[in-house]
């Protein structure tokens, strides 16, 4: 692409009305049937979790010692746990914690990763070197190992778990953004922006960041999935969110005993399926987003 044609591209891009661009992205997303199904599953879980208190016949923490470890029945469609709490109500409420941990952790990771990647890729020279070595340093601490230790040291609150998973999960995003910035900053429209005297901040935020965002969005979606699995594993080991707050992971803790595993499958199979379908849904949405947002697809 020559400088002249690049300069012509700027008004051409601006001429496309925003709404049209969004519509085409949505249309591309809609064509990905699995992504739509995934979005449907997530929305169903989300709506159920939001509307839970008014819809569910039993409270998630209501202890009923007369009906302990009961198999599924009409009054408790997924049975009850060791304290007579309704398993279905707990799964629905647990979705709130599990999904918000996933979303917030992914948001933290994406913001940190984007900032470090932008600065690293744009500044270059020693700043890039230092940030690259720092990223490598964080990567040498295996995520799950670092997360269990940090959560244990800071205290296993939902807030701390979100923070720690977020702070350990940005490295991939930083590398991705850096790579994109390296190629974007050499593009003609960025050079043109620099030539007309745009400040570094403006170049980064107005010219480069929008080009990076689709990639960050796709990576962030996959991070949500990873964070949900990390939180579940942490809570399953008893090192994460503490009972009585229900999460899909800590609901399955009881299944570490062979008795529960053998005779009360309703205590561990449904939460496992909830995690599996949510993560699968999130991954499909990520695939759909990739198709819908990938700027290379739009150019080609």
């Amino acid at each position: 692409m020559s400088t002249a044609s690049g300069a012509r591209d700027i008004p051409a891009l601006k001429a496309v009305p925003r709404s049209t661009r969004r519509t085409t992205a949505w249309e591309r997303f809609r064509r990905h049937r699995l992504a739509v199904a995934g979005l449907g599953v997530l929305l169903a879980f989300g709506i159920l979790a939001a509307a839970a208190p008014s819809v569910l016949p039993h409270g998630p923490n209501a202890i009923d010692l007369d009906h302990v470890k009961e198999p599924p029945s009409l009054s408790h469609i997924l049975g009850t746990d060791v304290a007579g709490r309704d398993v279905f109500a707990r799964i629905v409420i647990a979705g709130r914690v599990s999904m918000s941990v996933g979303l917030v952790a992914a948001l933290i990771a994406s913001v940190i990763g984007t900032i470090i990647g932008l600065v690293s890729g744009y500044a270059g020279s020693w700043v890039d070197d230092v940030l690259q070595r720092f990223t490598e340093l964080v990567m040498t601490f295996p995520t799950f190992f670092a997360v269990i230790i940090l959560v244990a040291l800071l205290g296993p609150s939902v807030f701390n778990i979100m923070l720690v998973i977020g702070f350990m999960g940005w490295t991939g995003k930083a590398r991705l953004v850096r790579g994109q910035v390296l190629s974007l900053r050499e593009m003609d429209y960025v050079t043109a922006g620099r030539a007309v005297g745009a400040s570094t901040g403006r170049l980064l935020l107005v010219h480069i960041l929008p080009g990076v965002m689709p990639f960050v969005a796709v990576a962030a979606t996959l991070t949500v999935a990873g964070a949900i699995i990390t939180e579940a594993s942490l809570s399953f080991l008893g090192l994460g969110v503490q009972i009585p707050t229900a999460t899909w992971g800590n609901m399955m803790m009881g299944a570490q005993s062979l008795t529960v595993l053998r005779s009360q499958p309703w205590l561990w199979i449904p939460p496992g399926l909830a995690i599996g379908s949510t993560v699968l849904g999130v991954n499909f949405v990520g695939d759909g987003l990739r198709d819908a947002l990938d700027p290379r697809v739009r150019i080609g």
Partner: protein
Amino acid sequence: MGKYISRRLAIAIPMIVAISMVTFLFINLAPGDPIDAMLDPEELYAMTEKQVESLRRHYGLDKPLPVRYALWLAQVVRGNFGYSYYTYDAVLREIAVRVMPTVELTLTALALGTVIGVAFGVVSALRQYSILDYVLSVASLFGLAIPTFFFALVALYLFAVVFPILPVFGMSTTGFFPLHDNLYHLIMPAGVLSLDLMASVTRYTRTAMLEVLNSDYVTTARAKGLSEHVVIGRHAFRNALLPLITITTLRLPYLFGGAIIVETMFSWPGMGLLAVDSIHARDYPVLMGLTFFVAVLVLFSNLLADIMYAYADPRIRYG
């Protein structure tokens, strides 16, 4: 090549120092000071303020953080990682006996996941859009979406409850280690641990093989009249697999994360189980030693991967 390796090794040294700093900072995030963690609460309660103060001085805890780090590092360089609060044994010895079980478990899972994953991926690509391809693709999607601990529960349910054919506990039936008994105990934990890697290797290999099979040089090889066997085995397969070195090593930290879960659930006496036990016991010196060790292990396996890659791919020449 030798120059490249020595330069990479030279970078590793400041990295190890940085790892030690991060590790030290990690453990100092713990609320309270090590004296609280070290002593029985009753013992602590019975002590006078002066006694606690002298203990604190004895362990150098009255000094500022950078000085304490320097003191700690001076000991670490001599191979002294401190003593467990719980067993009073040297941290290094506590960790040393846990290394081999973890290496045995993760390397077995790595081998299983890579070999089976590559086989699945190649078969999937060669029979694209067949029922087998469809089944393998769906299975690998599920493999990535379902957490390791749930697979472990399902495996336990199938092979310990419904068909009680596999042992569920530890590395051997008795304190002795006959190889066949050890391998028998390894089947379930290593199998469960390999699933996640297997799923991602399957997906990667399928995509890479399809891409290579559609490339010009494969078409040329076919046009030359080479047998399909040679085309796939010598031309397509090798090129598709090269990046796998990087992919599997990048997944090593995840594999270790999975090992923590699997070791805990199957009572496999490795570093992961030691980490979880030390967290429950608030055994900070052991946690500090483990964090340091694991990070250094990852650092060197990444280094090994880079060297292997440079060796395997003649296009890469490092100055």
